[in-house]
């Protein structure tokens, strides 16, 4: 469980979408979350930019539709988040 706690991206998404803390990361995606509409998308980008002090390129903006995608984009910016067995469930 500690891996979940220590993963800032997972925590950000869980808080942002008001999900249970133990939500599996593969369950965090636009497809699965009704709340994740276009308004939430704008708010989420603002929040990610604020939290990690980054800006997204134009082609990155369209690849932020799930935990996995965001993790991938952030890792290209040098922000690597450990995915533990717990997270994968």
């Amino acid at each position: 469980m500690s891996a979940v706690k220590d993963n800032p991206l997972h925590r950000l998404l869980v808080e942002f979408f008001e999900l249970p803390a133990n939500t599996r990361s593969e369950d965090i995606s636009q497809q699965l979350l009704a709340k994740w509409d276009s308004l939430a998308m704008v708010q989420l980008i603002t929040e990610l930019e604020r939290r990690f002090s980054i800006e997204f390129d134009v082609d990155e903006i369209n690849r932020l539709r799930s935990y996995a995608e965001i993790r991938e984009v952030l890792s290209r910016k040098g922000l690597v988040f450990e995915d533990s067995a717990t997270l994968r469930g």
Partner: protein
Amino acid sequence: MKAIESGSLPQIRRALQLIRELDSQYRGRPMHVELLSTFNLEPFLPVLEFALSCIPSQVDMRVGPLNDIEGQITQSRFANSSYGLDARVVVWRLEEALPEVLYPFTCGFPEKVVTRVDQLLERVERLVSLHQRFSAGVPLFISTFSIPVYSANSILAAQQSAGLFGSIALVNRHIYDVASRTDGVYVLDLAFWAALAGKDYADVTLDFLARQPLSAHGQLEFAFFLARNLRPLVVPRRKVLALDLDNTIWGGIIGEDGVDGVVLGHDFPGNIYLRIQRELLELRHQGVLLVIISKNNEADARQAFECLPDMILKWEDFVVRKINWNHKYENLRAAARELGLGLDSFVFIDDSHYECEQMRQFLPEVLILNESSDALQLLRAIWETDAFDSLALSDEDRRRHQDYTVREARSVQAHHGDLQSFLQSLEMEAIIERVEFSNLERVVTLVGKTNQFNLTTRRHSRTQVQAMLESPGTIALALRLRDKFGDQGIVAVLLALCDSDQSTLKVDSFLVSCRALGRGVEDALWAATLERARQQKVRRLEAEYIATAKNAIGAELYDRLGFQRIRQDNGSIYYCLEPIAVPIIPSWIRLGQ
């Protein structure tokens, strides 16, 4: 607080939730606000609601459809219903309202651009009259246009009056005009806000993605700026600023450092206190009553007001002065009673943490303005406070100081007769000394800097004074004052020179330090001078008064001492006295030796 610092949306939502769960008595008045904008405010609606809740107010905020300001005004369901709209806010920017000025050469510069600017000016007028027709009585806030953070070739744009910057200035000027001449129309000055917030407020990615131009940081800044502008609608401004003196309106402690030791002037750090005084005076002219609450001897404080050459604030700028050694909260409570105002009308500034803390504990209704004793922090606190915010200044505001001063004057008159007995009670003793080596330093200092009670303001150097002392017949006297508080040192100087046959004595310099003004020491010194003149068989005395910007207090001294005016030119008055009169010493001063 954490939510305010971080700007994190989940934290702001949580904070907003907590505020809404509070008992409604802590949440301020209900406030229904309609926001009409040319860009997208929807994504940060919770941030706006949070900031307005912090006023505090029970905010209910409606955002109109994107970029449909006039349509919404004519159709608004909120404005004309029992919903009771408390404010309508129009927020717009060039990208939607006047894009032509961003590409002037594509858009028929200059004629067509000028036409488009004129149309926008008309749009402002039309918008105001639509609002008045459909939502009469509802306060309307119109934003100014900020300079876009992103624009190409801004150097060239600055060179033309119909260019980007010239056009913005013209439109904004019109908005200020319309608001200042129309009741109930106010300016939300986004141009000012953008300059203050800096480039960090913008997020160009989100602007293109969702027409939402603000970063998380910018959203928070914008929201609190909006809240501060709306706040005067629900929170009355504080009426009184009660302040300390030492280390607040001058640097140092007047009772200990004396007039020469405290810091106030054009050099650092005295210039900070000077600026504090300018800000306070401005507040007073805007209808904020100023009150002194200071632990000092009143005479010391008064002396600072009379003697510090750079004082901006005058004794009379304060409607109540509580200068004594009582607890400050007692003094403040008494001031509130005298002014007939509630404690929640008061703001308090004091460099001492102790005094601030005591005030906080005893009179929690009083707003403590400063967190720190540092001069610059005091100034910042004055700059940044919203306690005196208002959207308009009434005639009553501008008259307020006078109204209260008249009231105060009536109560002071009763005490005036006590002055003589007060002076008597000081047990003053004047010791007359010849100016000589031992006191020369102090005499030269006084000659060099006494401004007010100084009849000729001649700034003699040490060498010049020494030369006078060596000249035959010279009378050079210094007066040392002692009173029940102790030795006050040399406070007055008189230098008089004889002509060659020793029969005429001419007063070259006559001055009294400001710390001894109003105590009659000039009469004591004059008596001693006459005494010596008689001993020297002087037959005629001559004197002059040379007017400066500061020495009006001495203008009639020689008239009072029995001199006759010989002639007058350019602000100088020449006097003579012949034969020399009998000295009169004030009853409350004992001449010692």
